């Protein structure tokens, strides 16, 4: 009996200790993140950007967001405590986080660390200490941390009908504020001018705009949380035919919006979309190689470069021009040749590495890609390819008497090309070749023993993949009007591989989602300069940790995840149907 009591008191102590450790850990995560953001210099950038004009900068919003999150996090992590205790935990976590930042403030106030940490500037110190002296600032920071994290815990503890709308409302207002400038660019029409002026100034979102957006988000979300179920039930109750027609109707709206949006949104969006489109096109090509045939390729940019250079050499009126007729070819005439050149490049890559597998294949293709880049860049090849000076004066494609000069026109060209590429991938997936690709992805030796000619199918994967990359390169050359070797860095290969993996390997919608996420978003955040890559790296790691199958996994991969029981259930259902 007494033993049990002792044991349980030990247990109690254990739980207490564990709780204490958990609090410290959560606080350290929050505080560490905030300090890291300061040290890496992100806060310096964020200070310049208003979420609410002259009131709340992105830096503030970041601090608030992180603290709210850790407050909520500790609540999720300690399910055994009572609600009130959890909220108190939230306060403690916030204090710990605040303490981290305070230490940074004290260090910055006491020592001059700028020669080492270039971002820890007086301006940052001023920002962090709100004009107080350092010690008061620390106190304020710690208290503010505690209160904010407690608020986070409170939100977490509040009932769903309140919590979700709150989060959605805040997020809506935040993102509208973050992209205020872009949204204004897209609202250059007189009809929407009053809304624009109500919501934004050129500095950022107005306070009234913020509140409006928050209320709007809150209301819609509230409606969905309280009434959403009923709506869905209503929808389900309808016949499957009308369900399908509703779905097609939604798809149609989405497609029309996609088609019209770039035209309405102005040339900046056009450019971003154009770039996303190019990456989608290349992603579709690489998807044939990596997604279907399982051939890792980090030299993909070489195919893209081949397409671009072929177009430039055949069409651009400069001293490097290759004359096939008595005049330079037009873009359309050169296009098939450029794609053919890329295809040959694909074969030239594929043949040597036929027997290389796995990670080694990635490295070997990367090496080949870099060889091409070094050669193009060198003086040796410059009489032929222009060296680092690049090739200039590439004409744009014409359709009849209409020049595709605007990024948006080229975007539509890219869109059509991507659709063709997607169709290719889709049609091949269920064909003899597609199955052979999947078979060698799964087990090369067995595939070969079943009569699959590895050389042919692998080379086809390289060639077809390269073909689409060449098409992308040709459009790219037309878009820029001039090309330089440094446009064809290893980074592009990495980007393409990363986007198809983040989107979900082997999945066609995944390519689009991945490109929007990894190419589109960073482009929209271009003003943060090189920090985009910091975020990019971070996103890659987080994505792989959280959703290793990608954002939109292919049906096959989803099937892989199905447990054996589900499959059995499926079997039973099927045999039941038969019987």
């Amino acid at each position: 009996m007494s033993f049990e009591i002792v044991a349980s008191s030990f247990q109690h102590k254990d739980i207490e200790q564990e709780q204490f450790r958990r609090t410290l850990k959560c606080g350290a995560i929050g505080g560490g993140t905030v300090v890291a953001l300061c040290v890496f210099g992100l806060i310096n950038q964020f200070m310049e950007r208003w979420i609410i004009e002259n009131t709340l900068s992105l830096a503030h919003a970041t601090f608030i967001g992180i603290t709210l999150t850790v407050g909520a996090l500790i609540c999720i992590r300690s399910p055994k405590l009572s609600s009130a205790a959890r909220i108190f935990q939230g306060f403690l976590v916030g204090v710990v986080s605040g303490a981290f930042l305070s230490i940074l403030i004290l260090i910055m106030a006491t020592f001059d660390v700028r020669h080492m940490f270039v971002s820890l500037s007086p301006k940052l110190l001023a920002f962090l200490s709100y004009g107080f002296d350092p010690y008061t600032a620390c106190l304020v920071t710690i208290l503010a941390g505690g209160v904010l994290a407690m608020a986070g815990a409170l939100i977490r503890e509040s009932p769903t009908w309140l919590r979700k709308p709150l989060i959605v409302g805040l997020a809506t207002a935040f993102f509208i504020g973050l992209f205020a400038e872009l949204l204004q660019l897209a609202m250059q029409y007189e009809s929407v001018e009053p809304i624009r002026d109500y919501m934004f100034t050129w500095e950022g979102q107005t306070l009234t705009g913020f509140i409006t957006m928050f209320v709007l988000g809150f209301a819609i979300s509230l409606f969905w949380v309280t009434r959403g179920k009923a709506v869905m039930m209503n929808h389900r109750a309808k016949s499957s035919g009308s369900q399908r027609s509703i779905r097609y109707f939604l798809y149609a709206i989405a497609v029309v919006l996609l088609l019209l949006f770039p035209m309405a949104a102005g040339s900046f969006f056009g450019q971003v979309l154009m770039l996303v489109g190019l990456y989608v096109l290349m992603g579709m090509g690489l998807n044939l190689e990596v997604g279907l045939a399982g051939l890792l390729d980090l030299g993909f940019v070489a195919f893209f470069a081949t397409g671009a250079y072929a177009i430039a050499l055949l069409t651009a009126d400069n001293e490097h021009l290759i004359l096939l007729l008595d005049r330079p070819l037009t873009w359309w005439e050169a296009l098939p040749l450029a794609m053919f050149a890329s295809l040959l490049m694909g074969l030239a890559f594929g043949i040597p590495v036929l027997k290389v597998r796995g990670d080694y294949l990635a490295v070997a293709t990367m090496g080949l890609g870099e060889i091409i880049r070094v050669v193009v860049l060198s003086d040796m090849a410059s009489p032929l390819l222009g060296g680092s000076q690049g090739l200039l004066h590439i004409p744009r494609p014409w359709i009849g008497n209409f020049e595709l000069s605007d990024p948006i026109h080229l975007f539509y060209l890219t869109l059509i090309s991507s659709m063709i590429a997607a169709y290719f991938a889709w049609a091949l997936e269920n064909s003899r070749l597609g199955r052979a690709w999947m078979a060698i992805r799964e087990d090369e030796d067995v595939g070969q023993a079943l009569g699959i000619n590895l050389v042919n199918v692998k080379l086809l994967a390289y060639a077809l993949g390269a073909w689409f990359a060449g098409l992308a390169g040709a459009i790219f050359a037309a878009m820029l009007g001039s090309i330089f070797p440094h446009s064809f860095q290893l980074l592009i290969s990495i980007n393409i591989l990363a986007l198809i993996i983040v989107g979900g390997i082997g999945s066609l919608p995944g390519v689009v989602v991945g490109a929007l996420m990894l190419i589109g978003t960073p482009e929209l955040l271009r003003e943060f300069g090189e920090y985009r890559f910091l975020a990019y790296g971070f996103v890659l790691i987080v994505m792989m940790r959280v959703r290793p199958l990608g954002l939109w996994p292919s049906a096959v991969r989803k099937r892989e995840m199905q447990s054996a029981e589900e499959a059995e259930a499926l079997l039973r259902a099927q045999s039941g149907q038969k019987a």
Partner: protein
Amino acid sequence: MTIGQTLLKTNALTKRFGGLVAIDALDLDVKERSIHSIIGPNGAGKTTVFNCIMNFFPIEGGEIRLSEERIDNMTPDRVAYRGVGRTYQNIRLFKNMSSIENILVGMHMHLKSRWWGAVLRSRHSRADEKKASEEASRLLQYVGLRGKGDVLARNLPYGDQRKLEIARALAMKPKLLMLDEPTAGMNPSESLEMVGFIRGLRDDLGITILLIEHHMPVVMGMSDIVTVLDHGTKISEGPPDHVKRDKKVIEAYLGQSGVGHMT
């Protein structure tokens, strides 16, 4: 069932791994429409024989002929084209593909459609595809996996995986089917069923069967010829009754559970 002429012949087949001689000057003579078993203790080099015939790795000496044609030095896919199909000791299905897709991959070399046909959806390629999937369903039914075509291979029960692997090999329409321990892990009644099934392959489809097996009742019950390997050399060959009585065989198996079954 009449046993015909020589289908597969190896002459002094030799395979070394580093210093280890896995197969030493093996002569094998597999007759058409026979069921020919290879038995031997663990590590006797049985599976290596299969791998050599399939040309998974180069051989060090000797030659392999299929219907008089040299097939060593060929890549595995060409050997497959000549009509050799096989299964694996540790089942090697395409685990993330469905049963029917596995079989369709097996039919790869008999399908005529080209990739541009698939892209353009030409009538020819659609017809080809349709015919293929019908045949694949028939094969599934033949091995007793009816209605499981859409199940991923990895989710099939063990016995079904074995059957699917055989179906995949059959899809190649082989002249010579090499089965690597088809009854491994099966209980006696399942084994018996498998024996009947393999006999059927020979009797109904006229396929020559080369078999590696550990279950002595299975081997002795259906083989026409049994070859006994030990340490890469052939120590005995002949009809089951002859092999059963061979002293060398009993010696090689001495201490192994096989002895009990054989006598």
